[in-house]
């Protein structure tokens, strides 16, 4: 019952660790770089049109991967594959939100 009622969480109950300081710093740096790149590209007008969109989407996808790997500890799972299951659910939801909205709006004669 060690994990019962403990607010700050006892580490014995979890499979795997919670990452190291180095990992967090790398993840933090990567996510900042991936934020600055699209910002510079758009603010300074380095790229336009499709090229700019591709850079934006590409850095967004990489950002997503950085979050999962460095902060959500996707690689560190043990036991039942909850991480994978939740990731798949999350992807289904994100794809539904994005594709669904685009599809609905594209068919809307008002816009």
């Amino acid at each position, binding site marked *: 019952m060690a*994990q019962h009622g*403990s*607010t700050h969480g006892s580490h014995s109950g979890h499979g795997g660790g919670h990452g190291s300081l180095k990992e967090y710093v790398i993840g933090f740096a990567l996510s900042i770089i991936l934020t600055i790149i699209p910002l510079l590209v758009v603010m300074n007008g380095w790229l336009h049109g499709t090229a700019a969109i591709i850079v934006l989407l590409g850095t967004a996808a990489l950002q997503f991967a950085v979050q999962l790997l460095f902060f959500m500890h996707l690689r560190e799972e043990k036991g039942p594959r909850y991480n994978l299951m939740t990731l798949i*659910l999350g992807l289904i*939801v994100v794809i539904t939100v994005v594709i669904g*909205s685009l599809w*609905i709006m594209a068919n809307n*004669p008002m816009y």
Partner: protein
Amino acid sequence: MLDKIKEFASWFFVTGDPLIYGADIAIALTTAAIIFVLTYFKKWKWLWREWLTTVDHKRVGIMYIIASLLMLFRGGVDALLMRTQLAFPDMQFLSPEHYNQVFTTHGVIMILFMAMPLMFGLFNIAVPLQIGARDVAFPFLNSLSFWLFFMGAMLFNMSFVIGGSADAGWLSYPPLSEMTGSPGVGQDFYIWGIQISGIGSLMTGINFIVTIVKMRAPGMTWSKIPMFTWSVLSSCITIIIAFPVLTVTLALLFLDRYLGAHFFTMDGGGNAMMYVNLIWMWGHPEVYIVVLPAFGIYSEIVSTFSKKRLFGYGSMVFAMMSISLMSYFTWLHHFFTMGSGANVNTFFAITTMIIAIPTGVKIFNWLFTMYRGRLTFSTPMLWSIAFIPCFVVGGMTGVMLSVAPADFQFHNSYFLIAHFHQVLIGGVAFGYFAGLYYWWPKMFGFKLNETLGKWAFWIWNIGFYVCFMPQYFVGLDGMTRRVSTYSWDTGWWGLNFTSTIGGFLMGIGFLFQVWQIAHSIKFMEKDTTGDPWNGRTLEWSIPSPAPLYNFATTPQVTERDDWWEEKERIAAGKAPKPQPVLEPIHMPKNSAIPFIQSVCWFAVGFGLVFHWLWIAIPGLLGVGITMLAHSFNYDTDYYIPVDEIIRTEEAARRSV
């Protein structure tokens, strides 16, 4: 100077309506009475120590339930105000502006500040007890969730007397909810009230998923989890996929209003339709979020009061989990008439019809559970039985609405109003009432009076049908929702008047429930057994009310409906399960931080509503400081020694 104050006050406070002045006086008197009683009986310390700072899931649950019943009263009064206004053609009871505010407030309160907290209250009361746990996974977070909800609800309710209420409908579509349509502060109260309580809802969702996944008693495998707990899991999964959408959508609306962005405006490249699209991505799953736990409650009650195992456990679990996922694929059926073309409408019409299938499966599961059972008609069972025909009719009209071409006729008419009230009252409210009656003895240690409960039940039910059946017809006659008045030549008077009578009957039913609670507190019928309904799941194996630590020793689960099987074993003359030796129990300490941090969030919300950064910024600082303080607080837990457990258990048994 005096003029300036006067000018400020007339802008700050809502003025000019006798109803509002009445509310002002009522609020002032209630506040004064509460302060007086607490001071006179020297209860301030008790209130602070035992309730405001508690992290005990049972107490948090009770606070949720009290708050939600108050909100039910407030939302119910709003409903009756509307029904009074509509009782006769050309009524002059509420002005159109006031009517808009009342229906907006009614919708928001009933869904977000009544149904949600009542649901969370029942989660808190029942889930840890059902799975044999000592508390939820994150007790501190649980308390924070409650206080965030409470402060959000207070912020929203305040708009009634300060600043003015939102009046753009319960989902506040732009452009009406933009600065151009709603220049006042009401819309900002709406945004921040929901945002602050929404954080709490999301955290509760996470908390209960972790609790159910990680903290079940040893031996409780997935196929032995009680059905209510399954329903909570499915509901919480839907919470964590739906609520972020709401938060983002309202944040974008706030940016439009506060910083002049153009996400949903009519000019500057904004797209008001996008708001409708996004808000229903939360809004549709939301109705399943509130109804799934009700399905779980019915499952528990039907099986307990039929003295039979639930029919089709596996199919029930499958139905719940598939609903929780599929609820995410039907949102467009709320705006078929937006005109996205036949392909889009067909897709969402079909998904909507598909989701009716698992719901239908459940109805048969409950019916077959009752079939050849030994039924007892206590109040929880009465509400569960009444739910079935009510929900079936509501579901059928829902399938009618899902037919896209037909929806163009029904859309935004009273037909729709009747439909969703039938599923939300007949499904959700009946379910939570049933759950409240069912778990009341476990919460407070005494039963509610059955006679008064039956009166309340019958009046509520008759009132319900009298109120909402006419609305289907008046809707087919062409009456649209949100109209504050109509004329004699429409021919809607008779149906509307009948509906108003039904509304007041439901109000009387509610008064009977209040009387029932008051009466039962006075003539307390103590539950001495801990198992007043001859229950099946673990929460009935411990004394009522449950001790602080719930279970003196962690239960070892071997079967589905473990407590029932244990009773059967004992009745058959077999030895009860051996009790493990008592050990000190690890418990979380109370904390004042959730309360203080939520007050800071309230300040943030209030400051942003009025554009007063001198309140909002200190509020945000307070939030940060309390977070830091909690991060560095390592003194968060303690142990209950064995002799204290023995004393508590003996005292509980002595009252037996």
